[in-house]
C-alpha cells in the first residue's frame, strides 16, 4: 500500500542530493551530461563476451560518489532494483548460448553465462551513471544543459513543467489510492471500475488545475521560457573534467586494464 509514498520519498531524496555543494556539483551541467554520455557509449560499445574490461569503469562512479559526497548505499540500493526486463532477457543467454568459452580450473563456463554477467555489469554501470548524473546535477540543471546543447525549448519547458507537478500529483494520487485501498477491505473493489473512476476524477482535477495554472502564469507574464536561478558557464575546470574523463574512458576502452594488471601481478608472484 505504501509503495507510492515510498517511490515519492525516493524521488525526493534523489532530487535533494543535487542541492549538495561539492566540486562536482559546482561544475557546469553540460560537462557532466557530456561525460556521462561518453561513459555510456564506451560501455555499450564492448562486444557481447566482454567482461573483465568492463570493471575498470567502476572507477568513475566510485570517484564521483566520493567527491560529490553522495550516499553510496542509497545509490547501490537503487541500482539493485535493476530493470527486470534486462534480467529476464539476459537469463535467456545461458539457455541459448551453451558453447564453452573458458575454463576456470575444472569448471567450464559457457558463453551464455559470460554474456549474461556482462549484461548485468553493463546494467549496473549505465543505470548507475544515470542516477549519479541526477544526484550531482539535479533534474532542472540537466534540462537546462540539454536545452543549451540544442534541445527544443518547447520540450525543455515541458520537462521542467512535468517535474514541478510530479510531486504534487503523485502525492494526490497516493492519497486517493490509499483511500481506495482502505475501503476495499482486502481484495474486492480494486478492479478496473473503481480504478477508472478514480483516475477519471484525478484527470479532471488535473485538467482544472492546468487551467488555473495557465491563468496564473498569464497573470505573471509567462512568455514561454523558464529562467534559471544559477547561471554557470563552461570554463576551464569543465573542459578539464570533460577531457580528463573522456581520455580515461577511451584509454580503458582500448586497453584491457584488468588483463594488464592481472598479468603484472600474477607475473610478479608466480
Amino acid at each position, binding site marked *: 500500500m505504501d*509503495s*507510492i509514498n515510498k*517511490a515519492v520519498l525516493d524521488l525526493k531524496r534523489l*532530487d535533494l542530493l543535487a542541492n549538495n555543494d561539492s566540486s562536482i556539483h559546482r561544475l557546469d551541467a553540460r560537462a557532466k551530461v557530456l561525460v556521462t554520455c561518453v561513459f*555510456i*557509449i564506451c*560501455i*555499450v*560499445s564492448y562486444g557481447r*563476451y*566482454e567482461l*573483465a*574490461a568492463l*570493471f575498470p569503469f567502476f*572507477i568513475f562512479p*566510485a*570517484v564521483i560518489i*566520493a567527491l560529490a559526497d553522495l550516499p553510496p548505499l542509497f545509490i547501490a540500493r537503487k541500482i539493485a532494483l535493476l*530493470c527486470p*526486463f534486462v534480467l529476464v532477457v539476459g537469463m*535467456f*543467454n545461458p539457455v541459448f548460448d551453451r558453447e564453452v568459452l573458458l*575454463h576456470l580450473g575444472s569448471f567450464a563456463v559457457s558463453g551464455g553465462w*559470460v554474456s549474461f554477467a*556482462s549484461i548485468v555489469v553493463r*546494467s549496473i554501470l*549505465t*543505470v548507475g551513471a*544515470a542516477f549519479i548524473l541526477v544526484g550531482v546535477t539535479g*533534474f532542472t540543471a540537466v534540462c537546462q544543459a540539454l536545452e543549451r546543447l540544442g534541445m*527544443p*525549448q*518547447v520540450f525543455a519547458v*515541458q520537462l*521542467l*513543467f*512535468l517535474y514541478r*507537478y*510530479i510531486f504534487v*500529483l*503523485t502525492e*494526490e494520487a*497516493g492519497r486517493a*489510492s490509499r483511500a481506495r485501498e482502505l475501503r476495499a477491505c482486502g481484495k474486492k473493489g480494486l*478492479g*478496473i471500475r473503481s480504478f477508472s*473512476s478514480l*483516475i*477519471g476524477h*484525478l484527470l*479532471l482535477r488535473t*485538467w482544472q488545475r*492546468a487551467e488555473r*495554472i495557465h491563468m496564473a502564469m498569464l497573470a505573471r507574464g509567462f512568455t*514561454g521560457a523558464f529562467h534559471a536561478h544559477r547561471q554557470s558557464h563552461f570554463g576551464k575546470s569543465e573542459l578539464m573534467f570533460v577531457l580528463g574523463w573522456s581520455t580515461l574512458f577511451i584509454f580503458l576502452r582500448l*586497453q584491457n586494464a*584488468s588483463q594488464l*594488471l592481472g*598479468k603484472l601481478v*600474477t607475473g610478479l608472484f608466480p
Partner: protein
Amino acid sequence: MHMADALLSPAVGGAMCAVSAGTIAYCSRKVRQELDDKKVPLMGVLGAFLFAAQMINFTIPATGSSGHIGGGMLLTILLGPYAAFLTIASVLVVQSLFFADGGLLALGCNIFNMGFFPAFLAYPFIYKKMVGNNPNQTRLTLAIMVSAIVCLQLGPFGVVLETVLSGVSSLPFSTFVLLMQPIHLAIGAVEGLVTVAVVTFVFKARPEILQGALEAGPTGSRPVRTVVVAFLVAALFIGGIVSLFASKNPDGLEWAIAKVTGKEELEASKQGLHGVLADLQQKTAFLPDYSFRKQPEPKKSETVPVQKDEAGKVGTSAAGLVGTMIVLALAFLSGLVLKKRK
C-alpha cells in the same frame, strides 16, 4: 517493456536516439506553430498525471494479478499527436533518470516504442478513422480497444527488433517474438479496457474535452502520413547503413578509430611504457582482438582433445580474474580514500 542500455549496441541506440530527437524537434515546432499556449501547462500537468497514474494498480480481471495503465493512447486522445508525443517523451526522460527504467542511451528506443506508435500510427489511422467526427460510446470503445492492442503489439515488436539488431542478447528473433507478442496481446487488451473506462468517464463528465481534442488535431491525415513515411524511410536508411558497418566491423568505436586514423588500430610507439604494455597485452590477451573468442567446440559426445595451450589459457583467465578483482578493489578504494580525505 522498457528497453535498456545493457542490451543495446551503440549503433542501434544512436540511430534510435537520432530518430526520437528528430521527432521531438518536429513536434516541438508543431506545438509552437499551433500557438495554443494553454496547452503548455496542460501538457506538463498531464505528464505528471500520467506519472502518478502509473503508480496506482488495479486488479486484472480473471487473473488475480495487478497491473497499471500505460497511458500512451489516453494522452494521445486527450492532447492530439504532437503534444502527446512530447508529453510521453518527457515522462520517459524522468523515468530513465529517477527510476532504473532503461537508461539514457535507451531513451531513444523507449520514446520511439511508446510514443511514436500511439501518436503517429494508431491515432491518425485507427482512432480518428473509427471515431469520426461525432464520437459515441460504441465507436469510442471499439476505436480505443483496437488502437491500444495495435500499439502494444508494435511497441514490443520494436523492442524485439532493437534487441536482436544489437546482438548483446542471444535470444533468437523468432523465440523472442513468440515470447513477447502473445503476452502483449493480453496486456494490450487490458490497457484498452482501462483506457476505454477512463475515456468514457471523461466523455460523460466533460464531453467538450474529447470533442475539443478531436477538432484541434490535424484535420487531414496527410501531414501525419508524410511524417510517418519520412521516418520509415529514415529508419530504413539508417538501419541499412548501420547494418552495413556492423557486418563489416566488429564494433563502432574501432571503426571510428580506423576512420579517424586511417589504420585498423591505434599504432603506438614500440618503445617506452606503452611499448612494454602493448607487448604485455600481446602476450597475455586471450586473443589479441577480443578478450574471449568462441572456438568451434566439438559436439558434446566427443571427448575434448587436450590442446597445447590449455595450461596457458587457464593461466591467462586466472590473470583476468585477478586483474578484475584488483581493479574493482582499486576503484572502490579510490572512492573511500577520496571520501575520507574530505
